[in-house]
């Protein structure tokens, strides 16, 4: 059986009736950050498609929720096992993301998710 077939069956067995990302619950170990922490988005080199948007790189936001555990989409190619990470929902002030965002709308925010590897304490 080719590796690809094995992987698909494996995921189905693991996730059926549990759901994805629910099936990874408990696998990421202790979370590095907690709700309320100020975090900065690292500017890690993009070798492949990434799901960490460029517009957030280097920005600082606040963790508003620990949303789930899951393998990170950017796992290095040489990892044999997907090691799930904690995923965080981080809220930013729009003014901290876009230099020209109007002071008049200083209350506006943006919320999006990151896997743990993208975050460092601010």
């Amino acid at each position, binding site marked *: 059986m*080719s*590796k*690809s*077939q094995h*992987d*698909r069956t494996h*995921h189905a067995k693991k996730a059926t009736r549990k759901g994805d990302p629910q099936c990874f619950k408990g696998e990421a170990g202790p979370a590095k950050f907690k709700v309320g922490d100020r975090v900065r988005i690292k*500017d890690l080199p*993009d*070798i*492949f*498609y*990434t*799901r*960490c*948007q*460029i*517009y957030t*790189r*280097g*920005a600082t936001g606040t963790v508003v929720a620990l949303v789930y555990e899951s393998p990170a*989409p*950017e*796992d290095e*190619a040489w990892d044999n096992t997907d090691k799930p990470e904690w995923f965080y929902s981080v809220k930013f002030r729009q003014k901290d*993301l*876009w*230099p020209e965002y109007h002071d008049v709308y200083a209350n506006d925010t943006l919320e999006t998710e990151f896997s743990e590897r993208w975050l460092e304490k601010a």
Partner: protein
Amino acid sequence: MATSDENAHGSADGGGPRTDLKLVALLETIKRRGRVWEDLAAQYGVTNPDPPWKVALDATCDLLAGDSLVLPTARVVPGSCALPGVQRRAEEDDLSATIYADVPFPERQLLALAHSMIKHGLLDEEELARRVKLVHERLNSA
């Protein structure tokens, strides 16, 4: 961190191969000659906003993506899915902004899918052309 205009848009731009924008003759023919749903629906007085094949198209896109939507292209185990979702969507975006820009949706999505599948070697253009002709004959032979 100042974001230059180049990076100002919200999409992910890390790596990934460039979309092959070279025209596919079969698809250019269909684009030129094909009647889009907007026109057909108006002509026949049908109020459905989408053509009847839209749902089948979406199912095809889902099935080709397998479990790939979150994985980057280079991480998708070859054979585990035919056309990763992120890649297909990125190509659809590029194609919709360029060679299929004047085609309405969802015809544009369909052309982009066929285009991607041909460029990635999942379908052969000649074979597809023959099959399109065959399907036409089959459906019109009632």
